[in-house]
């Protein structure tokens, strides 16, 4: 069953110089127990999509969507209160910089205890306190923090970034959400802690059947265990589909450039030889090109590219390009 089904999500920002379309008609659907990756460079609107799903964007942004279904319920048509109830019950989000998103004035114990829902307490009112302590301890153990006493009684600034991130995950899974949105959970961390966090998220996905929407700009880390991948460029979904297919047979020039810019996967690249990189830089949101937003940087761009390409789909592999990069083999089969 589809857990999350979003069609034509558009996020706009009203400014003095007119309306800026930060996210343009993005489709996304997620089944139960799947790990999806949302890949794109900074400023491509990944975090905006995540925030729009959870509904924490402020009133300057206008969010429109043809449909935004959560288990069959359209979130866009619910009242704010009902929507918040559903979101708080079923979804949880991990933010980018853990040490900044935790409350600096409260101890870890208080913060984790606050995120425990009332319903989980089974014993009577008078044993509430001891039960709360037990629960916090169990949560901290679950995310791989061994010294729970020391961590629970310290403030966020006393802990390392990796431990803070684990605390954030503990708070997120306290309600047993069905969907966990992880917004660049590992950018601030170094390789060994990074591997730990990935292992933790992976085990949550496998043991509890939790769906995860991973947002990242590091391609190589998530390719090994995500089921599907969505590639964004400047707010447009350029390619989406099963990870292996997107990664090894990219149809969009941008995805190809992303894959080729990884030293491990660029084939036949000699030591110290230049990488394949697209020319130019990402345009700022105020000066977006019309049509396909990759247009000015694209090596295959032609006259047609000033018209926004529609999303084509074949075998669950969607792409938005007028001139997709089909392999020769496929061309032979078609003709």
């Amino acid at each position, binding site marked *: 069953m589809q857990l999350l089904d979003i069609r034509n999500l558009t996020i706009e920002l009203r400014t003095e110089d007119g309306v800026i379309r930060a996210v343009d008609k993005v489709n996304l659907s997620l089944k139960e127990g799947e790990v999806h990756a949302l890949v794109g*460079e*900074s*400023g491509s609107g990944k975090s905006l999509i995540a925030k729009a799903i959870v509904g924490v964007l402020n009133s300057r942004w206008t969010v429109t969507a043809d449909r935004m279904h959560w288990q069959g319920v359209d979130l866009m048509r619910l009242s704010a209160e009902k929507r918040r109830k559903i979101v708080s019950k079923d979804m949880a989000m991990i933010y980018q910089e853990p040490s900044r998103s935790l409350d600096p004035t409260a101890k870890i114990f208080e913060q984790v205890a606050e995120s425990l829902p009332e319903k989980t307490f089974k014993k009577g009112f008078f044993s509430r306190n001891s039960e709360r302590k037990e629960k916090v301890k169990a949560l901290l153990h679950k995310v791989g923090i061994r010294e729970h006493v020391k961590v629970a009684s310290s403030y966020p600034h006393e802990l390392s970034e990796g431990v803070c991130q684990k605390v954030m995950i503990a708070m997120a899974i306290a309600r047993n959400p069905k969907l966990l949105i992880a917004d660049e959970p590992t*950018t601030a961390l*170094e*390789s*060994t802690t990074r*591997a730990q966090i990935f292992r933790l998220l992976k085990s949550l996905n496998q043991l509890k059947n939790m769906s995860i929407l991973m947002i990242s*700009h*590091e*391609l*190589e880390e998530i390719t090994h265990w995500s089921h599907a991948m969505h590639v964004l460029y400047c707010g447009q979904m350029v390619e989406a589909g099963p990870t292996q297919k997107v990664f090894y047979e990219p149809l969009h020039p941008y995805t190809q*450039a*992303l894959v080729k*810019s*990884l*030293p*491990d996967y660029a084939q036949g*690249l000699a*030591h*110290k*030889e*230049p*990488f*394949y*990189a*697209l020319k130019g*830089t*990402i345009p*700022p949101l105020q000066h977006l090109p019309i049509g396909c937003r990759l247009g000015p940087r694209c090596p295959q761009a032609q006259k047609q590219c000033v018209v926004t390409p529609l999303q084509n789909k074949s075998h669950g592999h969607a792409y938005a390009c007028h001139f997709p990069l089909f392999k020769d083999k496929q061309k032979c089969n078609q003709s």
Partner: protein
Amino acid sequence: MQPVLKVQALSKSFRSRAGIFKRKHIQVLREISFAVGPGETLAIIGETGSGKSTLAKLLAGADHADCGQILLDGKTIEDDGVRQNQCRHIRMIFQDPTRSLNPGITIGDMLDDCLKYNTGLTSLQRNKKIKITLSRVGLLSEHYEYYPHMFSGGQLQRVALARALILDPKVVVLDEALSSLDPSVRAQTVNLLLQLQKESGLSFILITHHLSLVKHMSDQLLVLSRGKVVEYGNTASIFAQPKSKVTQRLLNV
């Protein structure tokens, strides 16, 4: 071939309070020695707290060593913590370009300051030099009047590179300078660095967590653990046959 940069038995310790009268000594670097030839890249890897960033600071002259020498082109520039006042031959690029540039002054002024305080050039010569350097890193001369907030992250890293290159250094220290960039911007920056190295024989000291980049860019590899050199040698041979346990663990992740 004479090495550009030679480091001999460099040590560094920090003092911190452990009581009212007691002081605790923490040895951060212990007898580090290495040599970098012209046009070579030395990569330094290690866990957090292994002293990588301290070493970078010592090389760039932001901090003084306790004992040991740093030799540049055969001349001693730091001897047992006494530093010759020359910051123009070893330059450093920091991790986050958005935070390491002064937001209050234009790019041109920033580069001009570097020249003003380190060289005896006239203002006409300085202007010419700035224009040449900007075009060398792939920026336009119009960017002279721009403020840092008008650039994107990748362009800012180019500005940081321009600031490092404007004094014609022999060695550039990159302290995690590539890890905060987006993949395609990183590819562009790496291409630029490699091209500069080819053209002008610059030497790089690359400090990073990114192993695939280390493999691609570096000629020599230095593995640090708790301030000690665990392994030092040719990158390809260390990747093929890591000898110590620390290296094996680092390369496996």
